[in-house]
């Protein structure tokens, strides 16, 4: 068998169900007939466009967010669920992401080992949640640069070819809400089920200075995406896109993976399962990102003991740093643990020191870049809630 046939075997998927085809048909029809909202900017003669590609919950538009790895370990089932998502959780108009966490010299932080070991003790003492459904709620946001003609610019932290910042005017922050619920296999649903929804919460100027520049630019209420001139980022919230419940199937579900509760074994597990993908990450980077992912509690197979082990794994990393009293985009105070960095960004896990709960993961600028100072938040994921529950997922359409 040659490599092309092996790829076909590896990536081959069954055709979509009739339900999926019908849902897609409905989506396309809805997009064609969607009315133009008052005040929304659009190209002459065209319907207001859903920023289709901009709505993606998992990653949004190509930020080189190295914490991608963290979700991978044992979380594919939830990853699938997050891709579906459920309901808006925070009302539109929630505060914009804070400007940042200080200048570069303040981002040096201080040793985090003691703090992380304390968090391990707190995590181990937590009561495991139980229930029929595992539900997770998140908010994601990202900084978007706007240039001339209300068109966004590819930022240096976006994926893709080299960006030009010519014509830069101001920055906006776009936000999404995501909810997903996963039900393990039952007699009636041997594969388990997943359901969820996503909603774009709209965008707003990233800071008072950006707001002033936005007003000077004519106060536009929508922006043309740089990667697709038919896609729009809108100031007004978008529609909710719903999915499921549907069977959770396929080889990517990963629902049977068990994470070790022993720190040494957990570290080995991270490396065993990530070493295949050593495209740029050192072992410590891989471990820190995966440990942070475990501590989000965003995985149905993460017990208090596993979370405690993940804190101990992080504490074992040489030189790991932290900064206390950091405010996340929702205004919550916590301690930022520095997980890793790229050439231009620093990834922070913000932990509630009172409970050990993971509040948020952020990428911030390490140095001045694209008209923003060091410490500016470029991307964040707020962990609103996660855990097992016996409360049936609410009807997202209701």
């Amino acid at each position, binding site marked *: 068998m040659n490599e092309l046939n092996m790829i076909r075997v590896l990536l081959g998927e069954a055709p979509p169900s009739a339900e999926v085809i019908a849902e897609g048909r409905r989506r396309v029809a809805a997009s064609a007939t969607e009315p133009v909202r008052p005040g929304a900017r659009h190209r002459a003669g065209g319907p207001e466009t859903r920023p289709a590609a901009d709505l993606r919950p998992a990653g949004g538009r190509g930020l080189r967010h190295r914490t991608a790895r963290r979700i991978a370990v044992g979380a594919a089932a939830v990853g699938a669920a997050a891709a579906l998502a459920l309901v808006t959780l925070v009302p539109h108009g929630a505060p914009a992401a804070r400007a940042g966490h200080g200048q570069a010299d303040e981002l040096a932080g201080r040793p985090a080992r003691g703090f992380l070991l304390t968090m391990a003790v707190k995590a181990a003492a937590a009561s495991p949640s139980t229930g029929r459904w595992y539900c997770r709620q998140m908010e994601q946001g990202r900084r978007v640069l706007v240039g001339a003609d209300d068109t966004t610019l590819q930022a240096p932290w976006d994926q893709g070819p080299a960006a030009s910042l010519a014509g830069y005017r101001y920055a906006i922050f776009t936000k999404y809400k995501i909810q997903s619920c996963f039900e393990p296999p039952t007699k009636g649903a041997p594969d388990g089920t997943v359901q969820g929804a996503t909603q774009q919460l709209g965008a707003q100027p990233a800071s008072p200075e950006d707001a002033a520049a936005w007003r000077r630019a004519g106060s536009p209420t929508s922006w043309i995406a740089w990667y697709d001139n038919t896609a729009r980022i809108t100031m007004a919230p978008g529609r909710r896109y719903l999915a499921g419940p549907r069977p959770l199937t396929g080889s990517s579900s990963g629902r049977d993976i068990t994470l070790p509760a022993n720190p040494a074994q957990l570290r080995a597990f991270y490396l065993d*399962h990530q070493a295949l993908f050593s495209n740029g990450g050192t072992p410590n980077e891989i471990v820190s990102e995966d440990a942070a992912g475990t501590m989000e509690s965003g995985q149905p197979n993460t017990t208090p003991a596993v979370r405690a082990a993940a804190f101990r794994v992080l504490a074992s990393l040489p030189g790991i740093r932290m900064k206390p009293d950091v405010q996340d985009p929702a205004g919550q105070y916590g301690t930022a643990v520095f997980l890793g960095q790229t050439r231009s960004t620093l990834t922070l896990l913000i932990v509630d020191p009172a409970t050990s709960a993971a509040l948020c993961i952020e990428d911030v600028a390490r140095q001045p870049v694209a008209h923003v100072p060091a410490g500016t938040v470029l991307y964040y994921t707020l962990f609103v809630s996660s855990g097992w529950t016996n409360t049936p997922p609410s009807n997202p359409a209701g």
Partner: protein
Amino acid sequence: MKAAQGFGESPVTGQLLLKGDTHDGVPDVTAQSEAGTGPVPAAGEFAGIYERHFTEIHRYIAGRLGRDVADDIAADTFVIALRKQDGFDPRRGTVRAWLYGIATNLVAQQQRAERRRYRALARAGARDLADGPEERVVSWVAAEGLQPQLASALARLSREERDVLLLVALADFSHEEIAQALGIPYGTVGSRLNRARKKIRNALGQEGQTDE
């Protein structure tokens, strides 16, 4: 935009009734709305495009990102296609290549999801395929358990190499169709494909095999 005129959803069948340009000789779907009770929208071609291509586009995206993500992105592909149909130029390629180009662009925006997909596949073993179609299980066995190495090698390709390789492997595209879909020169397709295949073979320890 022409696509915004005279279409909607049949109140009876729920069938898409879209008016658009003529692409690809797709069949008219007027008959599917004949039982409608209200004014029957003008029949068009886009509904035919959707019915003809949605399944394969979904499978392509599912192959690259996983089934759960594919539902949304496959629909997005057609939403974008509908809105961009005025810009479609049949002299530059087929509707199929055009749709795959849109889908590939959307996949490119999901690189984290794609990496997760490969990692999950690398961890998956024969057990995950045991309840799948027999043919697939047999094929997996024939692949001699090289799945982790293959998934890893795919993850390490550049995005441009992966796009070309997977349009061949998953969509059976010719070089010319890939050039149309991705908007790149014909010669670039060949060089990227050769480079990608060589990397994959090296990862699998199969350098030297070139058969289909």
